[in-house]
């Protein structure tokens, strides 16, 4: 009976990937407790609820056949796009950004849906055009990508827009966009930087300037970076020990349980901890790339590749930001930061990876 239940639960679960995920998540809860000051127990309970929901989403997506997922891609994308338009028209403004939409009881942030829908719809598109991709197909793909990204940039939510753009770009890149085009786009992009600069909001410019010289504004924008690098640096090789980080516990590190949780982790667990975290992430990414390489359809390949690369991007952007080599954009550290939404979309993505990995035999036979 119990073994049958276990079979049911473990069906479609990729063992190695699940093991790496579980270790990382356990690490995450440990750090969240430490990063919450006096509210530790409450926060851990809260994160426990988030986790339960996210793991359920993972399991659910792992059960869904990639074929069905492919059929859902376009409707999900269109729905997401409609919601984004709705946000632009009647969204609620919080902290100066129009990102939220009231739907009866719940408030949703439609850009979160796009984190999954955009790579899926692009993978679906290339899957359809499998026989002989032409340049025009790539142009249409670019339009599919730019529509939601443009809407999100206008909210403004530059961080999310960049991540969604990256996830879509990965699909296009893996589908085989020619190097000539990539090269000329890069040149064009660099050339348009001054124009982009003039389009940016003041606070966005400030973040980039602050990255170049944090001391310029030590009280405001630079404060985050200064305090988080002090926290990480002072952790040394072995760290100050769990719950013993002075920077974190004395409240010097801002947003220490969410976007800047790596500062707490780095301070309390040192270089050793950071290396362990990097290795865990590499294991997850490596497994993801293997699943992508062995997937049996174009859709499955592209989806798995994009999910994996996007996961990498999250981790890299957050770690780069907290350690002071990338500008501050609001990206949480995957599976470690406190918060439910990001956790949900990441584990849902992992569920898709597992579905692709465990369903391939059926398709090829």
């Amino acid at each position: 009976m119990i073994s049958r239940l276990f079979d049911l639960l473990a069906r479609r679960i990729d063992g190695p990937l699940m093991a790496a995920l579980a270790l990382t998540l356990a690490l995450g809860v440990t750090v969240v407790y430490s990063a919450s000051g006096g509210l530790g127990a409450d926060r851990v309970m809260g994160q426990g609820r988030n986790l339960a929901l996210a793991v359920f989403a993972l399991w659910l997506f792992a059960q869904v056949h990639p074929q069905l997922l492919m059929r859902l891609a376009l409707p999900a994308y269109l729905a997401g796009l409609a919601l984004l338009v709705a946000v632009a028209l009647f969204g609620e403004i919080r902290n100066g950004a129009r990102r939220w939409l009231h739907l009866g009881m719940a408030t949703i942030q439609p850009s979160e849906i796009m984190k999954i829908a955009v790579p899926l719809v692009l993978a679906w598109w290339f899957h359809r055009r499998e026989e002989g991709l032409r340049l025009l197909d790539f142009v249409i793909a670019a339009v599919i990508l730019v529509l939601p990204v443009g809407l999100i940039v206008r909210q403004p939510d530059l961080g999310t827009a960049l991540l969604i753009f990256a996830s879509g770009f990965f699909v296009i890149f893996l589908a085989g966009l020619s190097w000539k085009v990539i090269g000329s786009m890069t040149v064009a992009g660099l050339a348009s930087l001054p124009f982009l600069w003039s389009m940016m909001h003041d606070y966005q410019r400030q973040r980039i300037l602050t990255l170049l010289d944090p001391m310029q504004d030590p009280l405001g924008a630079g404060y985050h970076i200064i305090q988080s690098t002090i926290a990480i640096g002072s952790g040394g090789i072995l760290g100050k020990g769990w719950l013993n980080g002075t920077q974190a516990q004395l409240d010097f590190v801002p947003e220490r349980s969410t976007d800047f949780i790596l500062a707490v982790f780095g301070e309390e667990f040192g270089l050793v901890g950071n290396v362990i975290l990097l290795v865990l992430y590499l294991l997850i990414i490596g497994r993801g790339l293997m699943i992508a390489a062995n997937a049996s359809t174009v859709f499955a390949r592209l989806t798995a590749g994009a999910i994996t690369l996007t996961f990498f991007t999250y981790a890299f952007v957050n770690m780069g930001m907290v350690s002071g080599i990338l500008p501050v954009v609001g990206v949480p550290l995957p599976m470690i930061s406190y918060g439910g939404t990001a956790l949900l979309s990441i584990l849902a993505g992992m569920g898709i990876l597992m579905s692709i990995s465990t369903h391939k035999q059926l398709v090829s036979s």
Partner: protein
Amino acid sequence: MAGFAMRDQQRELVVFRNRLMLAGFAILIAFAMLLGRFAWLQVVQREYYHTLAEANRISVVPVVPNRGLILDRTGKVLAANYSAYTLEITPSKVPNVERAIEELARVIEVSPRDRRRFKKLQEESKNFESLPIRTRLTEEEVARFAVNRFRFPGFEIKARLFRSYPQGEVASHAIGYIGRINDADVKRIDEAGLTTNYKGTDHIGKLGIEGAYEKELHGLTGTEQVEIDAGGRAIRSLARTEPISGNNLMVTLDLDLQKIAEDAFQDYKGALVAIDPKNGEVLALVSRPGFDPNLFVDGIDPQNWDALNNSPDKPLNNRALRGQYPPGSTIKPFMALAALEFRKRSPEFTISDPGYFTLAGVNHRYRDWKKEGHGLVNLHKSIVISCDTYYYGLANDLGIDAIHTFLTRFGFGAPTGIDIDGELPGLAPSQEWKQRRFRQKWYAGDTVSVGIGQGYMLSTPLQLAAATATLANNGVPVHPRLLKAVQDSKTQEMRELEPSVEKDAVAVKPENLALVRAAMVDVTRPGGTASQAYAGATYAVAAKTGTAQVVGMKQNEKYDEKRLKQEHWDHALLIAFAPADDPKIALAILVENGKHGGSTAGPIAREVFDYYLTGRKPVRKDLPKPDQIPDEEHD
């Protein structure tokens, strides 16, 4: 064609795998960069960052804003700030706190009360918080400590603003007090997203106006960027954003009236609420005994706390909002109105009162307070002489649910919504309520007791005052409130609050109201139950007296006050408004163990009315002691 497609698919797969490999390679490079960055920070630069973390050389310190003042309606100060020196200890920086305090006592005076308070604070706070051991240091004491400061690491003199309540006990239950922020407060602040604004603030409004309008009073915290030495002392200021002071609040209370009302209680416990019936402004809110809010400001010491908390007089209990008493006969005007409105009584309807009432088929006699009865009684007379028998029958004819419906319109059984916390709802019982509360059927006898404001019926003095104000306001509901205006700290502009009185929702017919009000006026004239206290008044007063039983009486048992202990003596009640034809003030008074409304509550109301309407200050006349009040002068 199929072959071509196959070749195409193969080619696609090769491209895909190549690109995937390329991406994997890029990922490795990126992670290597991160690893390099971590190694740079945590190995090569470790010493540098370690020093920074230890000293955290540049520190951003919050600059606490001045708390807004609280003023009465004429601008007299009820809560103010003053600047003084405190000596604070950070326990985590002192190896042996007790020995250090001993040492300190040789330099400046440290009283046993200071030590007890410090100990209590220490138990309630975290180790690295700075806690006051002495407050209000003199200049000389500051100088003496400064000379010896090298002997006291972890001790610090701070110049701080303190809250003071210059009126002491006066209006303490309305103003409330501030106290040190505790864990529950921290949680509340955190949930409201105000953590940043409370950095550096160690006091918060706990009760009354101070608690309810914390948001207005607190202000916006500024910041100062300072360079600090290894010991944590500020060396110099680098930049500063100024704090914005909290707003001053003008409350509806009239301080002089409040004082007169409080003094009028003399040694009695009880409560008084006076309301302007035109707009709901609370002119006086008394709960006796009061307490000195100044005791709470820096953490109350255990002895004072025990004295307040365990006193049988319960000085911390806000009787005006939280005391739920049977309204007794003060409910009769409302019952009379209900009977007129529901056409269960006409003004002419007359009973012959034998001194008791019986329900059909039941032997039990519901007694009138006057054993021999009042003779012929109509509606007018029933109010003037407070005939119980009349209301037993009236309530029985109305039925409990009609009573419930009608009383609810006047605000009984629900909080009035006054703008400070802690109010209790009282109780206007109904069949449904009894079923829910006791899983029992409602009996006709229950209704009979409710008819004279006893039985299950409960109300707070505030509710009674609001209901009386509603009577005075021609049935338009009055919502009591304490905040009159907010003075913006930046522009100094006084912003009056919109009066919250409802314009519609008239609950009763004018002719019925006029009848009841006329009877209430005769209550204060010769022959009425409150006539004594109003001899010679230059204005007309409408009133109703009442008595709330403290001990239930058995059938046929005579209420013998001499045999009962004083705390079992009945509570006296009075509701009143004046001038009767154009009411400017409505009030409700409860005097605990004051026996009869006419003899103790009546004179208190007279003093309040005299001052408010004519400006005449009361000449101190002793209220009768409870054992001097004759038994037969009931109700």
